[in-house]
């Protein structure tokens, strides 16, 4: 069942390159690789017959740093992994440590966390849509997407003072109370937002060039997606209806109604449709949540010095890019013994080779775009 890939390097070495074959190096400074990703492509004319991703250019040793910080001190570092969706990273880490401590954030904190995380999902998807469309050649959506994303970042800024690396949550709850106009701001953003999504769709969904560039490109069947442990929109576009928010609810997701959009063909177009629908669903979650933010404390009882009892925990959340998991081992001291971060971008990128084979060079950027990777998270 598992796919036995021919390793690129040995393949290239043992086989004499055909008359039409070349090896093309793309990146790490290529503008369409969303950071410093280097891809070695083996080409037959314009057709890709093999590829190898070279990663690690942004490796900062986050997991090693974690072993030298206290649980509290490490929290801001996770924002620097997926810097397009820092709020989600923070949520995963805080909840994992809470699980390790046996504590839980109060309901009010969890609801505010849910709202901010869903806004972050919208922001992340907007940024993905803008850049993905730009890579394929549609310049216009980028401006619209960034316009809306800006509104979300303003909400973050008003909430915690930062726009990107927010460090919005604390272990045990929240540090900041929602500001006075918080609900109003969220509502002001969410109410017209479905029309905005329609607007983006009117630019792309029926667009002949867009359809031509995305339909049937980079197909990943459900079986392959599971084999490669792809997660998030990549898995759902292949027809697997699985979302951790529903399967193992965390934060306050069990309180709200929403759908899990899925695709059928597992191609680039389906992944686009799934993410568009996810934005609409996130908007609905936000609207439901602001209707009734329960009163109460925002910080649970966790103490000033965090000393989780020895043991280990694996906690995963549905980040915008897929399953973001934290595996934390405690030895009973104030510093984590081991923090393993399961980055969705890295695991999804692993399926790249499977998806690109047989397609053209021009599709490389489409497939990198559709995987929605952030190299800060791939390399950690």
């Amino acid at each position, binding site marked *: *069942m*598992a*796919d*036995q*890939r021919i*390793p690129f*390097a*040995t393949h290239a070495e043992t086989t004499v390159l055909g008359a039409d074959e070349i090896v093309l190096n793309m990146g790490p400074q290529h503008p369409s690789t969303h950071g410093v990703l280097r891809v070695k492509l083996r080409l037959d004319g314009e057709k890709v017959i093999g590829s190898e991703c070279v*990663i*690690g250019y942004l490796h900062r*040793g986050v*997991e*090693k740093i974690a*072993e*030298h910080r206290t649980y509290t001190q490490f929290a801001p570092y996770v924002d620097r992994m997926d810097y397009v969706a820092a709020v989600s990273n923070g949520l995963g880490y805080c909840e994992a440590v809470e*699980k*390790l401590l*046996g504590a839980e954030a*109060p*309901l*009010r904190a*969890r*609801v505010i966390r849910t709202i901010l995380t869903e806004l972050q999902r919208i922001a992340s998807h907007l940024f993905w849509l803008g850049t993905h469309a730009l890579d394929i050649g549609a310049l216009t959506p980028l401006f619209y997407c960034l316009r809306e994303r800006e509104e979300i970042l303003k909400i973050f800024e008003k909430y915690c003072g930062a726009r990107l690396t927010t460090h919005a949550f604390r272990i045990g709850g929240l540090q900041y109370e929602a500001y006075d106009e918080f609900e109003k701001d969220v509502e002001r953003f969410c109410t017209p937002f479905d029309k905005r999504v329609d607007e983006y769709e009117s630019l792309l969904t029926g667009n002949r060039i867009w359809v031509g560039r995305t339909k049937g490109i980079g197909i990943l069947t459900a079986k*392959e997606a*599971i*084999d*490669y*442990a792809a997660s998030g929109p990549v898995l759902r576009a292949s027809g697997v209806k699985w979302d951790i928010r529903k*399967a*193992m*609810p965390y934060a306050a997701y*069990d*309180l*709200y*109604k929403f759908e899990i959009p899925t695709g059928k063909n597992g191609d680039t177009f389906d992944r686009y449709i799934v993410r568009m629908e996810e934005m609409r669903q996130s908007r609905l979650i936000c609207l*439901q*949540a602001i*209707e*009734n933010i*329960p*009163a*109460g404390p925002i910080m649970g*009882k966790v103490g000033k010095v965090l000393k989780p*009892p020895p*043991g*280990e*925990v*694996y906690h*995963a959340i549905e980040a915008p890019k897929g*399953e973001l*998991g934290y*595996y934390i*081992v405690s030895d009973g001291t104030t510093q984590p*013994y081991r923090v*393993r971060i*399961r980055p969705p971008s890295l695991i999804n990128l*692993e399926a790249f080779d*499977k998806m690109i084979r047989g397609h053209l060079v021009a599709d490389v950027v489409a497939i990198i775009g559709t995987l929605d990777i952030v190299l800060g998270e791939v*390399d*950690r």
Partner: protein
Amino acid sequence: MANDPEEKQPSASPKKEEPSAVNPSAAASEPASKPPATPAVPAAKPPAAAAPPRPPAPPKEGPVALDNDLVKRYKERFGEAIREAWIDRKQAILVIARERLVEIATYSRDEEKFDWLSDLTAVDWPKREQRFDVVLNMYSLEKNERLRLKVYATADERVPSVQGVWATANWEEREVYDMFGVVFEGHPELKRILLPDEWQGHPLRKDYDILTQDTAWVRENLGIESGQ
């Protein structure tokens, strides 16, 4: 608060409803080896004003031996190869014999339906003789459960590669090799993934000092003792 989801999720969270395999209540009913056997005392819950509709049981702190149906099935099938089983923070963990990893992984995927390998990683315990834990976090899309497999290895012992069971393990095993120096037997191209090929040492080992590489470079290239 606002509205409950109409359709009940299949075992929405690991709580007591169905006698699922990785059920914490199964462990709770077990004569626990630890003295403070406090299975889900409701009194331990903080008197929260807004009690949400969620499992009130506080997670058990620390590992407790586990012997539920799932573990029994594994033990029946593999006997001695299942070395230990315990539950920690409601998560089931099996320690298995290293030599039979591929066999047990294949069984987990096909028979127990743990078809989705969330994560593969390692932990270093330098004081132990077999210093490395190689940890597989599996998930079952069908049963909505997680299960963790662990194997122990010394620095010289090779761990069988599960790349043939789950394609996703390819890069994760490379990362474990890169960071810990654990060698996976049968991996098609075991080489560094995040660090440059010429890197010395394996950074996530506990005895790897983060300044070693820096100091060596500074000495060699700048001719001074240390840059820090």
